[in-house]
């Protein structure tokens, strides 16, 4: 009896393993890592792509710096970064980069009584807030921009990112452009020495702090504000007009940039001219290794090409703007030129 029971258990175990094998067998899959900014887009695209082609795209949003480090180490098939690498750095590391979509960051605030979109700020005022020079909400500089609003006598709690982030790069890049003091004191990078403020981990952390702390202000990707129904501030752009963060505003910024002549697509979209341009617009890039196996690079290129062709409606629904068609064509010839092969 005992040996029969043992045999039965062994048989059951074998059957279970045999049934599990098809599930465990490696499907065609692609790994990527990097920017949290582009994560909502890659997640949406990969869900549909897997249903259509069976290729699974495994993306880890560990931050732009992490993405750059991982693609340099060759542990992933593609790295995503909101900070473009300079052409000389790309050459030195044997990498190529291409843009994916444009989006924007906006200032989110927590002031009870002031509805979303009612507060208007300018770049210099934001720089002074983040430098700690403007400490209270009813500071004359803010009141001047918002004559109709009743601003409280409350301390401004500044919220920034505690982890390294491409959003931080885009935001500090904009501040460096419009505030010489910011450029000198702090500078622009994925991680900076913030003079004041509280650090939240990830865009989710910043959005969460802003929601919980009355009188706080923070910078987040517009997609997160849409998702959490947070309050965003309107801004005065370089043309002197008051604008809201919209898909059109991000795409206007992209239209003013010379994509065709930018080596390795190194473009910065902040503070672009144009009547309806959103000042804190940014792009996000994918980075590939030149000497990765051809099959891997082809898989990555096929995925993003599918996204360019068929994924634009999905992108627009989460406020990611598509690239101009000429840029998409330029990307394909860039692949051919740099790698020697293309899809």
């Amino acid at each position, binding site marked *: 009896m005992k040996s029969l029971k043992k045999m039965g258990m062994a048989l059951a175990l074998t059957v279970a393993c045999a049934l599990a094998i098809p599930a465990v067998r490696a499907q065609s899959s692609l790994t990527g890592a990097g920017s949290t900014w582009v994560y909502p887009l890659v997640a949406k695209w990969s869900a549909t792509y897997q249903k259509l082609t069976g290729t699974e795209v495994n993306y880890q949003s*560990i*931050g*732009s*710096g*992490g993405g*750059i*480090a991982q693609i340099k180490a060759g542990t992933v098939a593609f790295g995503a970064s909101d900070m473009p690498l300079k052409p000389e750095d790309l050459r030195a590391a044997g990498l190529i980069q291409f843009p994916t979509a444009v989006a924007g960051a906006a200032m989110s605030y927590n002031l009870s009584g002031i509805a979303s979109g009612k507060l208007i700020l300018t770049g210099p005022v934001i720089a002074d807030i983040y430098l700690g020079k403007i400490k209270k909400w009813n500071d004359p500089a803010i009141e001047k921009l918002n004559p109709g609003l009743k601003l409280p006598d409350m*301390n401004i*709690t500044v919220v920034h990112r*505690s*982890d*390294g*982030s491409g959003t931080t790069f885009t935001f500090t890049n904009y501040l460096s452009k419009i505030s010489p003091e910011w450029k000198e004191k*702090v*500078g*622009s*990078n*994925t*991680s*900076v*020495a*913030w*003079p*004041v*403020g*509280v*650090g*939240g*981990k990830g865009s989710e952390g910043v959005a*969460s*702090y802003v929601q*919980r*702390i*009355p*009188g*706080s202000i923070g910078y987040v990707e517009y997609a997160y504000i849409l998702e959490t129904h947070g309050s965003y501030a309107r801004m005065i752009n370089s043309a002197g007009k008051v604008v809201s963060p919209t898909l059109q505003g991000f795409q206007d910024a992209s239209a003013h940039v010379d994509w065709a002549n930018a080596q390795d697509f190194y473009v910065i979209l902040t503070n672009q001219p144009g009547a309806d341009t959103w000042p804190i617009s940014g792009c996000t890039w994918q980075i590939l290794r030149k000497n990765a196996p051809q099959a891997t690079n082809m898989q990555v290129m096929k995925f993003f090409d599918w996204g360019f062709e068929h994924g634009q409606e999905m992108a627009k629904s989460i406020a990611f703007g598509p690239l101009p068609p000429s840029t998409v064509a330029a990307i394909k010839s860039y692949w051919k030129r740099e790698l020697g092969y293309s899809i």
Partner: protein
Amino acid sequence: MNGSDVAVQRGMRPASDQPKSASKPWRLSADFLFHKATVFAAFLAAATLFAIVIAITYDSWPAIRTFGIWRFLKSSEWDPVTQTFGAFPFIVGTLVSSAIAMLLAVPLSFGIAVFIAEIAPAWIKRPVAAAIELLAAIPSIVYGLWGLLVFAPVFAKIEPWISDHLGAIPGIGSLFQGPPMGIGMLTAGIVLAIMVLPYISSIMRDVFLVVPSSLRESAYAMGATTWEVAWQVILPYTRSAVIGGIFLGLGRALGETMAVTFVIGNSNVLSSSLLMPGATIPSVLANEFTEATTKLYLSSLIYLGLILIVVTLAVQFLAVLLIRRLGRREGTPA
């Protein structure tokens, strides 16, 4: 006769005394193997500690070479853009948050242990003890989430009171002034206190329960109050174990990462107020490690880890010294 005598003798002598040549080889080789296996296990544990310290020192060498020791410890500048790094705000943050945690947790633990050992009726001892020990079972990241989502908003309502009343005290007032954010150094200290409370209180409770009843009853018989018995009879008797428990809690508080990262506010700027955000060595490591792209940045972060190891080892060393010194004063071995 010979074989059985030798067998009996062998059974009663320690393995190290056994002659190498024996008439029962299987017993000798089993003992031999067991001996070597235990030596190996002990050696492995000690070697791992040394290996970790050596590996961390090796990886932080570029930063040590660039910044030196004293300059790195004193500098308050942590700037990834200009690639200058200094450890001072994080060392202060680690020590201050742990100090707040110990200041809150030790008296509370003492109270809990005295309650369970002396005051509580028998039917309440077990549930209270079990509840306290369950606190230790909660994962630290859950503490972080609770601290951020539940405790911080409540604390943000209390902070204006603290700021107005304690902030007005001359001298130490500046420690308690700040905007009511709910997160910050004080919040981190409070969450840490809750986390180390079960460790300290369960050790205290265990040793308080084994104090000989003759000692306690004699004190009560002489008219001592419960407080006097606890403070002047029980505590001195259990001193070394209590100190061991406190340093165990301190070790946990120094190294706690996720709970602190959620509620401390992650500001690398040193501030004079406990209500303002700060950073500790574990929290800055958790935040910035994946994004440290340059070699010097990464090496500086590992250098911070090395400093934390040194601080933790120093704390352990202090604990042993303290216990030995107090034992010597009483004439009893530690």
